[in-house]
């Protein structure tokens, strides 16, 4: 059967060139880079070359790059490591309400340790409320962490502007570190840490056709950070543990490929995305795009629609039966049975949020695949709507029924 992978927010296919670059370091060159004999030196050289390539993608210096095992680890290191290092000058942290769980749960832990946290709200498109951010800054604020782009609804923040709001605010007493989670952005859109003015930035190989098991944290020269793994001297003593050389080499190659192809692939992916958005809008009634419009600040590969009167999990199961793999932000599709916190943050109606379906495209998708989805999608929606009591109520009465968590169903 046909396999159409449109869930590139959860993982991306490894680029063949990346795979080829990793191979020698799996079997042939297995020396530990900390060893000074010849096999170790080969690994050490490969490690440092990869560091240069990774740094170059975000316009950082090589020594500002710390390799970790995944985006979650980088976020944990950034949030906890910076908070611990700066806590003598304050204990107030600001994050946005649409951050990744690795930020949200790191923050939860810090709250238990006595840190005070403020959540900046977003508008109905997922854009940070700049005025609220300004108001939240205090004399004891030490850290602000705001995601560069959101993987679920595709909103790209104006990080440069947010950094300047934080750095120029008069309420602020001491130094405030600015961290951004750029896992979904890096590889998809340009990232320049010097231009942004950020102090720390998380990015990962797995979202840019690199291997899993490796990510990085950019730490601006001079920024204090407490390590979260106690051990040896690897990664400038900021992240102990034997370096995952094959994966890091692959990450370096992936960054090199992105740098070469970003502009052309970006244009191609935007074209596919726009075709998918306009095609769905013209073929299916009562659907709503979540997040910014395509021509606004939206990630190139991101399409998130709420399909009214049906539920996202049943929708993606039927798409899967046709070979199309996507995600959903619905409660039923999540392990904790809650509507995604991102959809709640943009204040979506609960019934409409239940019908959320997320397509995330990559450079490996084709025009034919998008046309296939557009061909199959309407009949799947029709099939589920024919089964839906919410739809038949709407057809018979012209009224919508609302679902309010914690209550029974009522009429609008």
């Amino acid at each position, binding site marked *: 059967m046909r396999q159409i992978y449109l869930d590139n927010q959860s993982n991306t296919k490894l680029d063949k060139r990346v795979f080829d670059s990793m191979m020698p370091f799996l079997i042939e060159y297995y020396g530990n880079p900390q060893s000074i004999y010849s096999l170790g030196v080969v690994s050490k050289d490969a490690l440092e070359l990869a560091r240069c390539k990774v740094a170059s993608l975000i316009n950082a210096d090589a020594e500002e790059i710390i390799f970790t095992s995944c985006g979650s680890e980088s976020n944990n290191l950034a949030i906890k490591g910076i908070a611990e290092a700066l806590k003598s000058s304050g204990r107030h942290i600001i994050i946005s309400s649409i951050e990744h769980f690795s930020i949200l749960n790191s923050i939860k832990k810090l709250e238990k340790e006595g840190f005070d946290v403020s959540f900046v709200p977003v508008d109905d498109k997922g854009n940070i409320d700049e005025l609220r951010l300004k108001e939240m800054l205090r004399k004891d604020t030490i850290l602000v962490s705001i995601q560069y782009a959101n993987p679920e609804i595709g909103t790209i923040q104006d990080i440069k502007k947010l950094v300047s709001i934080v750095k120029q605010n008069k309420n602020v007493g001491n130094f405030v570190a600015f961290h951004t989670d750029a896992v979904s952005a890096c590889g998809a859109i340009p990232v320049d840490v010097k231009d942004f003015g950020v102090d720390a930035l998380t990015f990962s190989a797995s979202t840019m056709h690199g291997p899993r098991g490796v990510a990085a944290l950019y730490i601006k020269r001079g920024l204090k950070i407490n390590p979260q793994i106690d051990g040896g001297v690897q990664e400038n003593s900021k992240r102990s543990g034997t370096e995952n050389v094959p994966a890091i080499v692959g990450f370096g190659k992936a960054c090199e490929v992105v740098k070469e192809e970003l502009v052309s692939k970006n244009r191609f992916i935007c074209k596919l995305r726009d075709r998918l958005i306009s095609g769905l809008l013209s073929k299916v009634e009562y659907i709503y795009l979540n997040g910014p419009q395509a021509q606004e600040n939206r990630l190139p590969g991101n399409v998130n629609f709420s399909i009214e009167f049906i*539920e996202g999990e049943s929708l993606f199961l039927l798409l899967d039966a046709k070979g199309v793999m996507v995600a959903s932000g619905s409660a*039923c599709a999540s392990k904790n049975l809650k509507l995604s916190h991102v959809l709640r943050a943009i204040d979506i109606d609960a019934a409409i949020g*239940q019908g959320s379906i997320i397509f995330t495209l990559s450079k490996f998708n084709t025009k034919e695949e998008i046309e296939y989805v557009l061909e199959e999608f309407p009949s799947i929606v029709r099939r589920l709507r024919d089964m*839906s*009591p919410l739809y038949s109520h709407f057809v018979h009465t012209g009224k919508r029924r609302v679902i*309010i968590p914690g209550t029974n*169903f009522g009429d609008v």
Partner: protein
Amino acid sequence: MAFYSEKVMEHFANPRNVGEIKDADGIGEVGNPVCGDMMTFYIKVNNNRIENVKFKTFGCGAAIAVSSIVSEMAFGKTIEEVMSLTNVDVAKALGGLPQNKMHCSNLGASALHKAIENYKSKKL
């Protein structure tokens, strides 16, 4: 292992008895307030037996499969037999449900019981 059992997927892909009954003898509706699933069951009763049953469901794969199999289980049964059917029986008939779906999507028997109560209240 797949998230859902084969039986769940089979009922989800080919649900039985989807629809509405215009002159139903009883209508039962259950909505789960946690995740927002919703089921509406329609029954026709003849001689104390379920002569016809149809449903409409808004929800995940499990919710649709539960509705389908419970409609099959109820067909031709007496009112008392259907009233003694539990949500656990339904989950068992489906070869089990994922743990987190046991309580939210497994509401088919409850919806049918409501339809029967509705039928009984009309007879009074």
